[in-house]
């Protein structure tokens, strides 16, 4: 075989490529200082100012203004109630969400990969998806009691279907061209799964994880309000019972931070795992 010089054969390189290293400090500065960040901060400021004005008009009892939240959060941290509630909530959230990821991704994959399994399970999944989980709470109390298990099950049921359906859709939508190409080059069934399908469906799986994460946080709070009053949800209820709207808002802000942090974590994982994709939901 004669590899007659590529440069002579292929004509001129179609484009000029330059590579330049960026200093780490510049990378970090770009992450922290950008027009988006600036506008986001401005937007946050507008919300806080509006809230402050409204709060002062209505009174702390009705709507605690942001300026009172520092004191309230200091009080809650000092008493230890915020940290213990946070750990309590996070444990049920993470356990329920993790089980949902394992079950949702596995079952979703099976349904997408084996057409028969997909066809058989499809109506059951649809049924499970439309049944309002909150409506099952009385039965959960009978089955799982009022403790940790009941909360984990609620979180699980709140988010498993998002993850499952998204994975199912992702596997069904794998470009048949990629599968055919792999088959043409001799890939066996296992290689098709491990080298092609599992990668090609990642954008959809991550979309499911993102949707599932916010549902999981909702499930966690609902469980804490409906079963034993505990965790962050319990903290909200207790604070409201004593008309401490400032404490209520502290917890709500903590919840928002959890949601944002979880979303950011998933997004970071997604950008690491699927650098080629902008995701199906964008």
């Amino acid at each position, binding site marked *: 075989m004669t590899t007659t010089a590529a440069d002579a054969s292929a004509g001129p390189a179609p484009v000029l490529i330059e590579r330049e290293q960026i200093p780490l400090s510049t990378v970090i500065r770009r992450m922290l200082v950008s027009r988006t960040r600036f506008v986001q901060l401005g937007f946050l400021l507008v919300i806080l100012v509006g809230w402050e004005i409204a709060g002062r008009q209505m009174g702390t009892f009705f709507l605690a203004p942001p300026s009172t939240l520092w004191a309230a959060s200091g009080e809650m941290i000092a008493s230890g109630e915020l940290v213990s509630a946070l750990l309590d909530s996070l444990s049920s959230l993470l356990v329920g969400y993790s089980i949902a990821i394992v079950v949702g991704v596995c079952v979703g994959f099976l349904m997408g990969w084996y057409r028969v399994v997909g066809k058989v399970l499809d109506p059951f999944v649809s049924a499970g998806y439309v049944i309002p989980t909150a409506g099952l709470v009385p039965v959960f109390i009978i089955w799982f009691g009022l403790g940790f298990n009941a909360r984990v099950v609620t979180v699980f049921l709140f988010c498993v279907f998002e993850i499952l359906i998204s994975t199912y859709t992702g596997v069904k939508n794998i470009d048949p061209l990629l599968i055919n190409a792999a088959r*043409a080059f001799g890939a066996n069934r296992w290689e098709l799964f491990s080298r092609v399908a599992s990668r090609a469906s990642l954008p959809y799986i991550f979309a499911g994880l993102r949707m599932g994460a916010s549902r999981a946080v909702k499930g966690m709070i609902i469980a804490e309000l409906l079963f034993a009053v505990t965790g962050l949800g319990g903290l909200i209820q207790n604070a409201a019972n004593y008309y401490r709207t400032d404490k209520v808002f502290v917890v709500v802000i903590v919840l928002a931070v959890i949601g944002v942090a979880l979303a950011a974590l998933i997004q970071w994982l997604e950008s690491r795992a699927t*650098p080629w994709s902008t995701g199906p939901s964008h």
Partner: protein
Amino acid sequence: MLYTIDHVTSQQLTNPLAAAGPGPSAAGGIRVAGLVKTYERTTGREIVRTHALEQVDLHVAPNEFVSLVGPSGCGKTTVLKVIAGLLDPTSGTVTIDGARVTGPGTDRGVVFQQPALMPWLSVIDNVTLALRFAKVPKRERVPRAERYLALVGLADFHDHFPGELSGGMQQRVGIARALALEPRVLLMDEPFGALDAITRQHMQTELVRIWEDERRSVLFVTHSLDEALLLSDRIVVMERGRVAASVDVPIDRPRTRLGLLEDPAARRLRASLEEML
């Protein structure tokens, strides 16, 4: 010399294999015999049968470059997919150098209409993945991938991702991937169909150069007569799931687009082929 279409057509009808070069005893190359593909679909109380391939006989001799032309929907791609082993025929057989095709195999390198690259893998990883699938020993994969990427002019683009390349460059990766298997035959399904005119011309020239470097049997599906005339030793015309004609292209190589336009024999051949389509 130039066959008239009528002559070839009648020969084709009486004995399809005779027109296709060596007799059945010569088992080399791609041999397709009595290929039938029927799709069945049930709609309500009706069964709809689509006869994609009625009866296809075809032979591509070792190192021969054959183009398969015909209007869209005539079954060209179906023939190619059956030969590639990606589609089971309803009846009929395909053999590659005498070995019966029962599924996909690495004796055939396939280039698809779209580049069909894994978007999550770099250019070189796309090629080495195919070599991995083909059970090429690990040590050989990277050097082989590098060699064939250089052959298609992508030596500087190893660690780029497909999304960062132009359509023409992506298609070249697809060609390098097929060549890297060092297959006995190359199956190409309108590989340049999605490219702009300038890139297509460039790629055609390059394909001929590569083929002349590394001779092997090529079956090239296209709907462009000019492309078929420029590239092939023989043109097989398909129509409604059958082979309508098989025509030699007795034009000296190297061929150029301009040369084909000026050569009266080429013009006559083109005109008579056009009439058939």
